[in-house]
């Protein structure tokens, strides 16, 4: 699914990384536990999380993933955006819950990591 379409599905807003809006995403993983994210060997997937802090972005950096979707309308701080920009990442926010966000994206064809 093209990122632009994904943003529309979750009624989202792109906070940084707009230049990647026409890239395609195939896989996603939803978790508030960064240790779980760090066990994944694949790269370049979408992380859906409700944990909005700098360590979420750091975890994305270490996991080689560049698409972050913050659910539940969580506040994304300037520090987080700055770190995401340094690493050429995309940050999207959605007002929907983690469950609703995941369900909508799964129905729209995004595949689970496992």
């Amino acid at each position: 699914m093209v990122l632009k379409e994904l943003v529309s599905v979750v009624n989202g807003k792109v906070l940084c990384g707009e230049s990647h809006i026409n890239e395609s995403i195939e896989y996603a993983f939803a978790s508030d536990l960064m240790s779980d994210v760090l066990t994944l060997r694949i790269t370049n997937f979408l992380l859906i999380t409700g944990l909005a802090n700098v360590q979420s972005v750091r975890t994305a950096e270490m996991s080689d993933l560049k698409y972050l979707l913050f659910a539940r309308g969580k506040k994304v701080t300037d520090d987080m955006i700055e770190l995401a920009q340094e690493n050429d990442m995309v940050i999207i926010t959605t007002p929907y819950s983690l469950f609703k966000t995941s369900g909508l994206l799964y129905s729209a064809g995004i595949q689970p990591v496992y």
Partner: protein
Amino acid sequence: MVLEYKVEGGDFTQAGNVSSSVKKVLKQLGINPVVIKRVVVALYEAEVNIVAHAYRGVVTATLDDEGIRIVLDDEGPGIASIEQAMVKGYSTASKEVREMGFGAGMGLPNIKDNADEFTITSKVGVGTRLDIYIHYV
């Protein structure tokens, strides 16, 4: 090449800075991205452990022709039972650490999974040393 970094315990705003720096160096050296991810995931988990549990620590990364050795030495409370600490799900992390998305007792097992060689030694009341080696191929 030897790189040395200091890590301050309790300062979550800085957690990940060392891992980020090492990642940049490995990318510049043209190391395989799959290997880089294994190195930085193991290092990041270990770095977060120092921030979460210790007072301070020193990270030494030594790169040779075949791989990278990372030694993390911290001054802190130490680990009473390494056997218990290596069990997935066991954690003594604080509420603050858990709020950061860690402290689920998965860090040490994940470091071991990513490393080709991994040893951990600790002395209660003194500190903990992690020795991680990962081959480039």
